[in-house]
């Protein structure tokens, strides 16, 4: 069955801190409920820990490193799940159960299957 990436956009927080433990429980509940169709997923540290890498002039050129995420967005890109679903409707229904969707947003995108 096709795979979808569910990319979570939420408040830009450090999920390891105790004040977010309760919210994490909700994510764990989702993970347990959807275990049969989840094929992976990780939470990311906040965007302050991000580093953006570019190579100027193309392959082999100078590596330019800058502090921060690629894009400053209203909510921050904070994690992702890989979900195996029959079609987009199923993926959407599932994504709506991710806590990020309740206050932030979840972007659902089909994963390319290169055949092996």
């Amino acid at each position, binding site marked *: 069955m096709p795979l979808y990436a569910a990319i979570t956009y939420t408040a830009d927080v450090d999920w390891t801190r105790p004040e977010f433990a309760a919210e994490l429980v909700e994510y764990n509940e989702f993970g347990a409920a959807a275990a049969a169709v989840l094929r992976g997923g990780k939470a990311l540290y906040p965007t302050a820990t991000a580093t953006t890498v570019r190579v100027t002039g193309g392959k082999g050129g100078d590596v330019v490193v800058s502090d921060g995420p690629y894009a400053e967005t209203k909510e921050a890109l904070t994690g992702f799940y890989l979900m195996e679903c029959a079609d987009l409707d199923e993926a*959407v229904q599932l994504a709506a159960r991710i806590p990020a969707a309740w206050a932030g947003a979840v972007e659902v995108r089909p994963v390319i299957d290169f055949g092996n």
Partner: protein
Amino acid sequence: MVRVTGDVDLAEDAVQDAVVRALERWPVDGVPASPRGWLVVTAKRRAVDLVRREARRSGKEAAAMMLADPGGEPPEVVRDDLLRLIFTCCHPALSEPAQVALALRTLGGFSTAEVGRALLVPEATMAKRLTRAKQKIAQARIPYRVPAAEQLPGRLRAVAATIYLIFNEGYAAGSGADVLRTGLTGEAIRLARLLVALMPDEATAAGLLALLLLHDARRPARVDAAGLPVLLADQDRSRWDAATIREGVELVGAALRRTSDRPDPYVVQAAIAACHDLAPSYRATPWDAVVSWYDVLLSISDQPVARLNRAAAVAERDGPAAGLALVDAIEGLDGYPWWHASRAELLHRLDRLPEAADAGARAVACGLPASQAERLRRRLAS
């Protein structure tokens, strides 16, 4: 049809052709006694034609298809195929412009060039829009399916919204515009009729058709000799189409009876339109009823534009000051030309002329159509 032809594209083509023929022939021949049966027969005939044409590639296909045909596709199958097409075209994962373009192309049978002309978009752009939409359907796997019962009400409203968008494109087109564009109102009504025929128990479909008919009935009075739009208040109601109003009102009545416990936004909007269309004059409009209907609408779908329209009705019932207070309290419409135009009108009635002129200028700056801007200019100068 997919069962008979085993190929979604071919099935879609055949069903679409049958729909196109239905939409062309029914107004001429009158609706056939068994419309679904008619669609089955035509669709099958068309599919066989299509396969025969492509049989150059493989004579086996045509033969296999004949064998697969058990000799009588149930009408429910064709009805299902049409519904699937409609719900897929109008899937919320597609952008609104993509939904409108797909609906006109696939359900309306417009060519890509015709869709472009109708929507004032260059053909090459329209071709890209359609291709991207079909690519999204394929790559994201938007399912070719009638939504499950839980999703149906919301999805049906999305279909209605797309058809309403098509209607408004045609309605907003100025006189002298391409007839393919002004004809969009007729196209939207045809699609609404199709939706009612396919889902006769759904109040949303009946509400949409009623709403479109009740708007369309006023069209003969909408434009004056100079080609300028005539406001509802000034329209010559003797030019309204009485038969269309009758049909719309009957639809509203039936739909209201069906949804007494759970109002449907399209049925309610149609009820508001019926209040206007049944009034012998603007002054005699039952404004209290109109405001009440807006209250119902806002309770199920609180949108700023609906609030604006309610405020206009309150202004008629309680005077411009009351109306203006409500208009000013609506947030989020600062970029909406009609919000500024409403303010301009109410300020004018309150004799606050410099502010009215300001509001009029803001309306134009926000994109009020030229013909409406001219009408407003004349009004503010009076």
